[in-house]
């Protein structure tokens, strides 16, 4: 019985600890608190998580100061409210993320959550967000399954899903009259790589029905060594090599492939490759067809047009702060925060200027459209919960004089040209030959 007492004592002590640590600071009326979840450690940190939050932190600071950005983003904070941020590391898998999401909403009482790079997390979080009635923005992840397999009331994705990356790549080949008698793929062996390859082969099947698939290689995620795969690609001699690799895997592949001259024998086409330019610099070979999952990074900088002022403001602030140029991830974080700002201010215009509830925010966000450095974003799919955005593909060219990588021969694609129409699943859309695509 003595042992029993101590056991129960231990349990009660733990419980008291838990309860004692609960009581978060009550949410204030003049502060809007967001929880940001992004990779701060692990493989996706260097490529996506850290640059995304560098960009996000910069933008939040600029907004809190007020008047730093061109209209319509010249108002301070979110509708005059100060922005407060709680940052959480996305590393650790979906199990941990569901727990952390609950903690953010129930313990930290954040007003909105912005986050998730990993597709697995993006599938796991939405049911919980709806259960807790917590307004949530998925800012980066790619899988179309989130809203094609489910529908959620409080969850929005402010970036286009991954279908457009590979459809744009195939369209780029076609519009540049690139001859593709055969092609091969090297993609990471997990959902992202498998889905990207399926989208690309599907799109190629429509645009280049005679092209022969030489080989589809799926090295392990995080493999780092691609000697065997490069040998296979050199032996098969495809006209084009497709890869959706990212991060260290992409850097490794490019360095090893260029050392063996693969880029001279086959055209390399990278669906999401722009983010390794700051690391590789001139080690990234010229003449690679490159996407950035949207008009992001170099493609946005080269675009000009009416969004030039907004883009250049963010670009220059980022370069001044971090001594490198912003790649795709900060652009997606910016479009999420600008979208959130637009939704909050729209909701406040309707409710008379008080801090909006999750319901009001969700109503304001549904079907919203706004401008971001990456172009005009429209919440056009999945009943106004899934964004579409324009995309761009270009060709790399190292400028030895300035010591900077440039993107040349850039083709810009309208959002409705490379995204499926509302109510249609991406896979079907590609298989049926892109019905309803509006390309000019």
């Amino acid at each position: 019985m003595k042992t029993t007492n101590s056991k129960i004592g231990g349990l009660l002590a733990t419980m008291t600890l838990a309860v004692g640590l609960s009581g978060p600071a009550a949410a204030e009326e003049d502060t809007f608190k967001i929880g940001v979840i992004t990779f701060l450690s692990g493989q996706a940190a260097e490529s996506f998580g850290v640059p995304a939050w560098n960009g996000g932190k910069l933008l939040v600071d600029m907004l809190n100061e007020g008047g730093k950005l061109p209209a319509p983003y010249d108002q301070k904070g979110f509708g005059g409210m100060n922005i407060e941020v709680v940052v959480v590391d996305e590393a650790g898998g979906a199990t941990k993320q569901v727990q952390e999401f609950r903690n953010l909403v129930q313990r930290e009482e954040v007003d909105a959550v912005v986050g998730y790079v990993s597709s697995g997390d993006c599938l796991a979080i939405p049911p919980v967000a709806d259960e807790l009635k917590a307004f949530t923005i998925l800012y980066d992840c790619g899988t179309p399954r989130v809203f094609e397999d489910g529908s959620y009331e409080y969850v929005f994705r402010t970036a286009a899903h991954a279908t457009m990356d590979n459809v744009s790549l195939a369209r780029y080949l076609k519009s540049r009259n690139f001859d593709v008698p055969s092609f091969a793929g090297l993609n990471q062996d997990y959902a992202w790589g498998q889905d990207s390859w399926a989208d690309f082969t599907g799109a190629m099947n429509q645009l280049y029905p005679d092209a022969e698939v030489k080989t589809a290689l799926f090295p392990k995620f995080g493999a780092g060594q691609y000697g065997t795969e490069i040998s296979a690609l050199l032996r098969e001699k495809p006209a084009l090599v497709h890869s959706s690799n990212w991060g260290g895997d992409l850097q490794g592949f490019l360095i090893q492939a260029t050392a063996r001259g693969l880029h001279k024998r086959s055209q390399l086409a990278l669906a999401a490759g722009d983010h390794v330019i700051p690391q590789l610099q001139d080690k990234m070979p010229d003449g690679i067809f490159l996407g950035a999952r949207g008009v992001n990074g170099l493609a946005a900088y080269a675009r000009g047009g009416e969004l030039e002022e907004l883009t250049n403001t963010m670009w220059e602030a980022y370069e001044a702060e971090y001594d490198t140029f912003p790649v795709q991830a900060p652009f997606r974080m910016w479009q999420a925060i600008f979208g959130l700002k637009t939704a909050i201010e729209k909701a406040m215009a309707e409710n008379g200027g008080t801090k909006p509830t999750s319901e009001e925010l969700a109503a304001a966000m549904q079907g919203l459209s706004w401008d971001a450095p990456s172009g005009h974003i429209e919440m056009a799919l999945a009943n106004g919960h899934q964004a579409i955005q324009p995309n761009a593909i270009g060709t790399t060219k190292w400028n030895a004089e300035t010591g900077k990588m440039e993107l040349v021969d850039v083709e810009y694609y309208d959002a409705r040209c490379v995204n499926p129409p509302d109510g249609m699943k991406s896979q079907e859309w590609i298989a049926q030959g892109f019905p309803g695509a509006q390309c000019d």
Partner: protein
Amino acid sequence: MQSNLIISAIVALVALAAGAVILPDWAMFLFAMALAKGLVCLGIVGMMRGGVVSFGQGLYYCLGAYTATLVANNFGISDIFLLTFLSALVCLLVGIAFGPLLSNYRGIFFAMLSLALSMVLYGSLSKMSFIGGTDGLNIAAPTFLGWAPEGRPLQAALYIYVVTISVIAGTLMRIYFDSERGLLTLATRDNELRVEYLGASVRNIMTYNYVFGAVLGGIGGTIAALALGHVDPEFAFWTTSGEFVFVAILAGYLSVPAVFVSAIILELVRSFSNLYFPNTWQLALGIFLLAVIIALPNGLGSLVRRWKGNKA
């Protein structure tokens, strides 16, 4: 002894169940997840008593979670009791299949072989894109004998369910640990040859421990999947198994409640370090683990023994 055990079980059950009322939402969820993982760790502790550690308990955690999810999604079964039973059954069968094989191995060989089995499941699930591949799948909230709660009642019901199962499993494992076979397990840890000369089959003992671990792993996985609403192959990844081993080491093999307390402590430390040190939470967690191992080499359970020793 037996009556003491039953009284302590009832007291623990009541104390824990009170959490359904007094705990805030986030803590209730954290406790439910910790107890579900604690069940898996209890299985490892059962094996640890015999001197072997399974580095692949993620196999049953994942198998249980996927069984529940696939059954729920394909046959429309949402009853938590039925799902738990089916997962436990599948894990029992798989455990019976692998148990006799693994029971011949000790030390690092047992650890590596069990790890290999769980990684085979991880690799296979990652390749199966028709069930979501590495992204995994979602599972709807469970019902309780036809009752379909939402919001806090759902969380409270899940919490009470996992508390009840944990207390029952803990009590049964305590009875087993104190039984003849359970005590022989402890003897095996000290001298395997002598146990064989006593006429007992060490292999048989090890198989039993492994199969109990499998069933507990499956139940833990099912509850975790239902609480999270999502499963992915990560459930079988070695880092998940490693976490279970850590909890088992933190708890030590001396006390059953220590397993659940350790699981809860680990979850709390992780949750708060993640919040307060977003860039260095792994470091904070690591320092905590190191400190515990240095201060309590025999685990939290040794505190109970120490306290008991002082009193006596």
